[in-house]
Structure formats: C-alpha cells, structure tokens
C-alpha cells in the first residue's frame, strides 16, 4: 500500500466515527437522487410495457360536436373494432339516499372499450354489463361517499339505472381523475332517455379504435388531421399519450430531483464545514509530515483520500437508503400514476446518484483541503507561524467557479433548459445568500442586544454562538433552509384554501347552477327564491368559435401557427356572455367597455380577457369574426379586462355588449348564496328534481376537491422536504460533534471553576434554543417572503400568512434543534477534568 493510503488510513484512526458522521450528511441527498432516478426508470419501463393501456385503444378521436356526414362515414369506414363514448357533466340523484345529488362526469358508452388492459370494477366485469342492459357503473369514491350498494338505483337526468358495479380503475386515465370529477358510465343507447344532451350542452364525443397489429396509426392521424382540419377533431394515440406522459414525468422528476439536489448540496456544505474544522485540527500533523519530507502534494493527498473515502461511504449508504426509499415512492405517487409501476433496481440511477454525491462532496471537500497545501513545515517549530501567509488562494476561486458551474450544470441537466438551470442556480444562490445574510444579521443583533441582566447561563449560551470556529451560520442556513421549504408549502396551501374559504365569509355567491335553459330560468329563480336563496348573479351563455382572426381564417392560422400563439385558443369552443356593465370581479385595463349596441351594428365592440388577448395576439381595434352556431358575427376588440378567476363566480374570456346575442340559442349560469350545507343540498335537490339537465357546483365541494388535491401534492412535497429537513438535522449533529473537543474543554474549565453539571447543561440548552429560534425565524421570514411572491405573482390572491402556522414551525424546529443538540452533546460533561488537562500537554 502506498504511503498516502497507509497514512490516510492510520491517521483516520482517532476520528473514524467522526468521519462516518460527516459522510452521513450527504446520505439523504444521494438517497433522494437514487430513489427518484430508480423510480423514474421503473415508471419508464412500466410505460413502455403497458403503453397500450395508457389509452386503452390504438386511437381515440374526440369532437365537441356530434360527427355527421363525411367525417362520420370516413371513421366508420376505417374498420377495426370501434367503441363510442359521449361524455358530459351532470347531476346524479340518489333516490335511496333521500334524493341527495352530486355532480359527476357522465359517460355513455357503447362497444368493447377498453381494448387493452382491464377496467377494474367490483364486481369484476361490471363494465361489460353496459352492453347487456340498462345499468350504470359508478365511481368507487362516489359509492363510498353515499354508502351505495350494487343494485341500488341512481337517476341521471330523466332516466333511472340500477348500479351494476363500482369503478376503481380504467385504462387511459389516472386515478386522480376520480378526485376531480367522479365518473358514471351508462349504456350509450340509454342516453336518449336522460334528455340531457341538448343544444348548447358541453358534450364530448369520442370514438375509440382498435386496429390490427402493424397498422400505422400515426400515418392515419396525419392524414385525418389534414383531411378534417375544419372539424376541430382531437386525435389521441398511444404514441401521443406516451409523449405527453413522458413530458409530465420529466417535469415531475426534474422538480423532485432538484429538491434532492438541494438536500445533497446542503449535505455537501455540511461535509465541507466539518472538514474545515477537521483540517484545522490536523495542521500540526501536516506540519510534521512536511518536516519529515512529505511534499505538499502528498500531505494533501493523504487528506484527499480521507475526503474521498467519506464521500464514497456516504454515497454508498445513500444508494442503499435510496433503494429502500424507492419502495415507498409508488405508495406516495399511487393516485397520480396511470400505470402500475414495478419495483426493480436501476443501476443507472444508482450510479448517477452516487456519482453526483461523490462529485459534489469532493468539490466541496476540496475547499477546506486546499489549505493543506499551504501548511508550512515551520508550524512544527512554531504553532503561531503562518500569519504572513496570504489568506486567499487563487485555486480556491477556481473551485468556487467549478462548484457554481456544477450546480448550474446539474440543474440544466435536470430541467433540460439552460435558462431554467441558470434560474435554479441563481435562485439557490440567492436563497443561500439571503439565509446567510439574515443569519449573520440576526446573530449580530442578538449579540449586540443581549441584556446584561440575563441569567449567566443564558449569556454564556449566547456567547457560545460566537466562539471561534463556531458553526452558527452553517446551522442557521441548513435548519433555516429546511424550515423555509416545508413552511412555504404549508403557507401556500393555507393561503389558497383561505382564499376560497374567505368567499363564504362575506356576501359572495357560493352555489352555482349551470346549463339552465332559456325556458327554465324563471322556474329556477322561483325555486331559489322559495328556498330562501335569491339569485345573486345570472349570466347568459352563448357558445361560439372563432372563424376569422385579424382577417385570416382560423384553418389557415392553425396551419402555420405563429410562435407563441396557442392553437387551443384558436380552436376552442368559447362560452361567451353579454351584459351591460362590468362584473365586480373584473376591471378594464385597456380601451373602453361598451355595454350596449343598437341592433344591426356591423362590427360589435367586445371585451377580451387580457391573458386570452395575449394568447391570440390581438390588441385593441383588432377584428375577430365568431361563428355563433352557424351565424358569423364580426367583432372588434374594444377593451381588455383583468379577471379575478379564483372568485367563485361565472367569469368569461369574452363579453359581448347587450343588443347582439339575445336571439342566439343560449343557456344560463345562476349564482346564489346559501347559509348552510343542508340548505345547499335541499336547493340542489329541488332544482335537479324539477330540471334534471341543470347541474350545480357547491363551493364546499370545490374546497373539498382542492383540499384533497393539496393533500396528495403535499404528501409528495413533504416526502421530499423531509430529505432536506433531515439533512439539516444531520448536518447539525455533525457540526455539534465537530466542536465537541472545544466544548468538552469549556465544560471542564467551567466545572473546574465550580459550575455544576446542571449549569453546564443549561448553558447548552440556552445555546441550542437560541440557535433553533434564529434558524426557524430566518426560515419563517423567507417562507413568508416566498409566500408573498407566490400569492402575489402566481396565484393572485390575498396575502395572509397564518400566525399559528408560523408559531408551530418555530416551536417544532426549535424543539428538534434542542433535542438534536443535547443528544449530540451527551456525555460531554462525563469527562474527568484531569483527563482533558493531560490531553493538552
């Protein structure tokens, strides 16, 4: 064995436990990367293996209108197996549950869908009964919610169906769909009986195809797209689904990986900081080695080997832990996954995670190790020698540069775009910078304003935060970062929920009825009036499409799409309203709002929502021709509006003035306010009983759905934040143990001077409490800042951080800090003073 390896091994004798502890800092970061990477590979494999079940068919053709004529004939002539589906939202009534109602996705189906994969129902094969008789298959969550049994009836529109079974899973859709809107499957031929599909109803027609193997679906889709451009058909193929899913998985994976990467960076900073203290303690040994003839490079190599060894150990432990954590990931993500992911070890992910861990650890460890090259052998003669050695090493700047580049490079690699990578690297640098800055400021302030009247143990505990070689800033940064990440998530969740809940606090509507037909309006109004909930808002809705934009037909525009102009905005079906004034949820940002025009106006001035205007690339004065159910109407953009979309109200992209659309086929949205959920249920039942086609949305239901989604997302983010927070705790334990020798000496000195063991422990308690308070305080401040930014710029809601949440965070982090600190310092008081004093000679 070479001298370097032998020396590295022997020299580590007294500090192996400490080195292992240092290596723990990167374990969780590596574990996160390995777990996510391996899980990603499992998912990719699953997607490849089960690709056809992603759609359940070879091709799905979707249309917003019932297909007729040439298109229908062409599709029918394509052959293969076909299945048809008509889907829309409607109220479901449960007669055996006191006539309770719930909005659901109704899907009337015919044919053997799914062609690939199995629909999971209880009892099995329930979906097949749709073809056999007049029965319904109901989403499992809905069955549970209302305590429904197979065989009980449900009413959809004007028809009643017995329940054939509960739907748990169907190919082509992620289980999360059930969370947004529970599904109810009906036989297609019974659709007529419901009387729900009427003019203006928002209905989606879909045909599923199964072709013989070897059929070129992609070529067919290209052909169909070209041929039926004007019909605005949607085509979904297995390849398309794979691409879409791949993109989503990539995005989710990038996000998770970046969180894992933050944990790794935090750990690496912990390692570097621990190594710095370690190297300082090794200076005498290094000087002796230099005196005995070791070159600077060899002495450096000895400690580099130790650094590499601990990096390797940390990376290996991380990989093992990551593989274990991987087993937990499918459970965390289950509700979002459209496929069953098998669990196997991806060696590529293991290598990637370990490589990243070792690389980052090495880069950061090099920082403190660089100083070894400059240890003068003279220090063996004189301990204090070295004051005239320049402090900054040019190689150190090279290292800083390399670290910056590698962070940027990793982020770029994860996000696939250099702009995002740079953004991430800069945001991370800013967060670290702010955390460090705030930590220093708070430390400085705490030091400056320590009241002299504080008991001695508190003053001593505070003074410990500024002892030489203190890890105060490191601890504040690592604990603060953990607090910041977790708390930002919670605050944002609380802000959003509060925003929606807030609307029940004042006079805003909280119950919406939609699909109210022209002739039903008076009846619905009367029912609401009778139920004690007068109408608050009534908006007519007319469906239309854009046919000509700024003088160019939409077909032409969508053929050669201008960059940045969304095809969706061009082709979608618009549900517009007309009214004489602005609603309270909107304001004009450009142009002027026209409330009424005289009949026969050639070019109608309309008001467009500013986001849509950007999407369509239109400005004030630009002309748009709408096709209103066959009638072309020329319009001109008269004003742009900003809309508060999150308000529970009927909001519109395009608003027409009065005097144009009154005669067009239309239906209404009616909003009211109810005082209780019982009143809401009673009103919904009354309205749906009288007008089965009318649907209702209760704000309470929206809140429930939002909360359910948040809970699922929060589970994922918390799982990841846990890695960061735990890394913070490990880094802290490492830092406490690194300063242990100094601490033991201090406690011995104090005890020699007459301090009791209890006093010494209380000094530590004071130190860790202050540390925990400062860390959680800094993290909380940043989280409040991030919450403000998110609330202000992303969600555009009110900024109202919950003081209770902040208090809980501060108390929890402080407790964890104190407990970790005290546990890591356990036994510091057990050393007899003599033993320590002897060590000093």
């Amino acid at each position, binding site marked *: 064995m070479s001298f370097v390896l032998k020396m590295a091994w022997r020299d580590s004798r*007294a500090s192996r436990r400490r080195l292992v502890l240092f290596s723990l800092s990167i374990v969780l970061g590596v574990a996160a990367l390995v777990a996510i990477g391996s899980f990603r590979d499992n998912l990719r494999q699953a997607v490849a293996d089960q690709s056809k079940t992603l759609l359940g068919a070879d091709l799905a053709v979707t249309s917003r209108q019932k297909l007729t004529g040439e298109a229908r004939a062409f599709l029918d002539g394509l052959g293969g197996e076909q299945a048809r589906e008509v889907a829309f939202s409607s109220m479901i009534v449960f007669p055996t549950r006191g006539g309770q109602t719930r909005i659901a996705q109704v899907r009337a189906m015919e044919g053997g869908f799914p062609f690939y994969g199995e629909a999971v129902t209880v009892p099995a094969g329930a979906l097949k009964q749709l073809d056999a008789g007049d029965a319904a298959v109901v989403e499992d969550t809905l069955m549970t919610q209302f305590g429904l049994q197979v065989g009980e009836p449900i009413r959809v529109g004007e028809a009643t169906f017995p329940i054939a079974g509960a739907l748990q899973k169907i190919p082509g859709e992620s289980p999360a769909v059930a969370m947004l809107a529970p599904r109810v499957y009906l036989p297609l031929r019974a659709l007529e009986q419901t009387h729900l599909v009427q003019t203006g109803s928002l209905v989606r027609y879909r045909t599923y195809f199964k072709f013989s193997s070897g059929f070129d679906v992609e070529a067919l889709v290209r052909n169909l797209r070209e041929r039926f451009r004007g019909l605005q058909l949607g085509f979904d193929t297995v390849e398309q689904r794979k691409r879409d899913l791949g993109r989503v998985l990539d995005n989710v994976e990038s996000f998770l990986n970046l969180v894992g990467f933050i944990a790794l960076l935090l750990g690496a900073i912990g390692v570097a900081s621990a190594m710095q203290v370690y190297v300082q303690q090794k200076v005498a040994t290094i000087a002796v*080695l230099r*005196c005995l003839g070791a070159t600077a490079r060899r002495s450096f190599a000895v400690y580099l080997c130790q650094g590499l060894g601990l990096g390797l150990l940390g990376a290996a432990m991380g990989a093992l832990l990551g593989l274990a954590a991987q087993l937990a990931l499918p459970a965390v993500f289950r509700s979002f996954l459209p496929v069953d992911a098998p669990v196997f070890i991806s060696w590529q992910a293991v290598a990637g995670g370990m490589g990243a861990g070792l690389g980052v650890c090495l880069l950061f460890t090099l920082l403190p190790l660089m100083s070894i090259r400059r240890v*003068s052998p*003279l220090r063996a*003669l004189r301990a204090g020698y070295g*004051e005239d050695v320049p402090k900054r090493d040019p190689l150190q700047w090279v290292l800083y540069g390399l670290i910056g580049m590698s962070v940027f490079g990793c982020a770029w690699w994860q996000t696939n775009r250099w702009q995002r990578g740079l953004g991430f690297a800069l945001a991370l640098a800013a967060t670290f910078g702010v955390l460090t800055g705030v930590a220093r400021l708070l430390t400085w302030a705490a030091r400056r304003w320590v009241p002299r009247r504080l008991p001695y143990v508190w003053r001593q505990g505070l003074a410990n935060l500024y002892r030489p070689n203190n890890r105060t800033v490191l601890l504040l940064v690592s604990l603060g970062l953990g607090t910041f990440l977790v708390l930002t998530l919670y605050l944002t969740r609380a802000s959003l929920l509060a925003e929606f809940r807030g609307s029940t606090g004042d006079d805003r509507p909280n119950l919406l009825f939609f699909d109210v037909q022209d002739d039903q309006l008076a009846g619905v109004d009367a029912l609401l009036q009778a139920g004690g909930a007068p109408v608050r808002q009534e908006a007519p809705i007319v469906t239309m499409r854009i046919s000509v934009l700024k003088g160019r037909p939409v077909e032409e525009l969508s053929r050669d799409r201008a960059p940045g102009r969304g095809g969706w905005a061009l082709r979608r079906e618009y549900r517009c309203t007309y009214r004489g004034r602005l609603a309270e949820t909107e304001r004009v940002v450009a142009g002027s709002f026209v409330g009424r025009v005289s009949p026969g106006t050639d070019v109608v001035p309309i008001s467009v929502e500013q986001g849509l205007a950007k999407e369509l690339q239109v400005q004030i004065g630009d002309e748009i021709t709408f096709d209103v159910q066959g009638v072309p109407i020329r319009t001109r953009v008269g004003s742009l509006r900003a809309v508060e979309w999150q308000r529970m109200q009927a909001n519109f992209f395009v608003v027409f003035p009065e005097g144009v659309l009154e005669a067009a086929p239309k239906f209404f949205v009616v909003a009211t306010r109810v005082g209780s959920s019982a009143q809401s249920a009673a009103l919904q039942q009354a309205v749906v009983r009288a007008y089965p086609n009318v649907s209702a949305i209760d704000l309470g239901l929206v809140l429930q759905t939002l909360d359910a989604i948040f809970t699922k997302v929060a589970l994922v983010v918390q799982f990841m934040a846990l890695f960061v927070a735990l890394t913070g705790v490990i880094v802290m334990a490492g830092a406490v143990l690194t300063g242990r020798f100094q601490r033991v000496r201090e406690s011995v000195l104090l005890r020699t001077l007459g301090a009791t063991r209890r006093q010494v422990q209380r000094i530590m308690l004071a130190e860790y409490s202050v540390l925990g308070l400062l860390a959680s305080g800094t993290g909380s401040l940043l989280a409040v800042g991030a919450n403000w930014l998110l609330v202000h710029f992303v969600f555009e809601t009110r900024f109202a951080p919950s003081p209770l949440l902040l208090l809980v965070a501060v108390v929890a982090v402080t407790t964890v800090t104190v407990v970790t600190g005290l546990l890591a310092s356990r036994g510091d008081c057990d050393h007899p003073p003599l033993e320590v004093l002897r060590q000093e000679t």
Partner: protein
Amino acid sequence: MLKVERLTKTYFTAAGPLTVLKDVTLEVAAGDTLAVVGPSGSGKTTLLGLCAGLDEPTTGSVALNGANLERLSEDERALLRNADVGFVFQNFQLIPTLTALENVLVPLELRTGLRRNAGEGLASSSAVPGDGLTEARALLERVGLSDRLGHYPLQLSGGEQQRVSLARAFVNRPKILFCDEPTGNLDDETAQAMMDLVFGLNRERGTTLVLVTHNPDLARRCSRTIRLRGGAVVDDHSA
C-alpha cells in the same frame, strides 16, 4: 555539511517589517556539533528553520550537504529533508493517531515511492536501510522503548515521547540532525538521559548536530557554540 551565508529574514507583519535574523554567516563541517544559544526572540529557531529548509530567507543563502536551498522548490526541499535531515522538536511533534513504531516509520514510508515520484537525483545520497521495520524496532530498543512499540503518544510520558521522536529523527540515517530545545519540556533527570542518547547516537552514526538550546550545560557538550542576540551572531567559539 552546512554553509550559511549572509542570511537575513524579515517578516512583513501588520505592524511593519520585522527583521529577526541579520546577516548571519556560518559553516558547519560534517560530524561537528554546534549549539545555538541566546535569549528568547534572538532568532535561534528562525535560524534553525532556515538551515533545515523549512522556510525561505529574505536574503542570503543556505547550502545543505552541497545543495543550494534557494535553488530548490519547497517540494524539492521536502525530498532533501527526508533524505538527509533529522528533527527533534521541543514539543515532540509526534502524530497523535500513529503508534510509537508507526511514528518512527513515517520518514521511511514517505521515502518509498519518493524515488519513483521525483527525487532521483536529490534523495539518492542517503542509504535506505534494507529493512526499515528492523531499523525502527532497533532504534526504539536503543532508546529503551522496546516494550512500548504499540503505544500511542497519549499513552506515553513526555520523556518517552521525546525518545520516540529521537528514534524517528535517526531512522532515515540523516547526515544532519536539527534539535530545537529538545529538553525544554523535560525534567532534569529525563533531560540528562535524553541528551546522553542524542550525543551517543550522534557519535555512533557520525551525524552532524545543530542544537538550539537555553541550557548552558547542553551547549557545553557541543564542539562549538554560537550566541545570537537581536538576530545577529555576537559570539562564536569552539570548546
């Protein structure tokens, strides 16, 4: 063996330049024993450090065993130290994580691979013992520590630690031994025994000895004494 010419060392501190060694010239022949005495702060340790190539002079030159130190890089000087120089420090400077035997072996272990790495021309003059381990054991036996080979520095008394460091200083069969206050941290009796060992080994192996000390008795045992004051040589006499 050692030739020092017009040696000056100035440290540039925050408080201004500080000259600790002024224009020192001296020559030591092979096998000679030289004591450097003088009050604290007179530049003794600085002179020793410069002679051993541990630092670079501001002006002047040092030639060690014919090699001009200022022409060598720090790494080349390290090779030279490993080959030709032994050290005994006032505070022993044993590596706390190594046993007594391992401490003694360090210079030899450093040497393995040195020849491969670089210093063919430089480090070749000194004879490497055929079996380093035997040599190290023999030296520890010679200093009376044959039963303490596996002990760590913390488990040894001050006198024992200094004897280990003496064994380490001789293990590479140095041409010149530099001792910096070798008895400064020892009681009289232990110091006496220690110095008997130093001079005994010195005679046996024909090593040149440069000894920095406060102790006049110790200085008298050397063949020549120079006295420093304020960084300059004020007295130079042979016994």
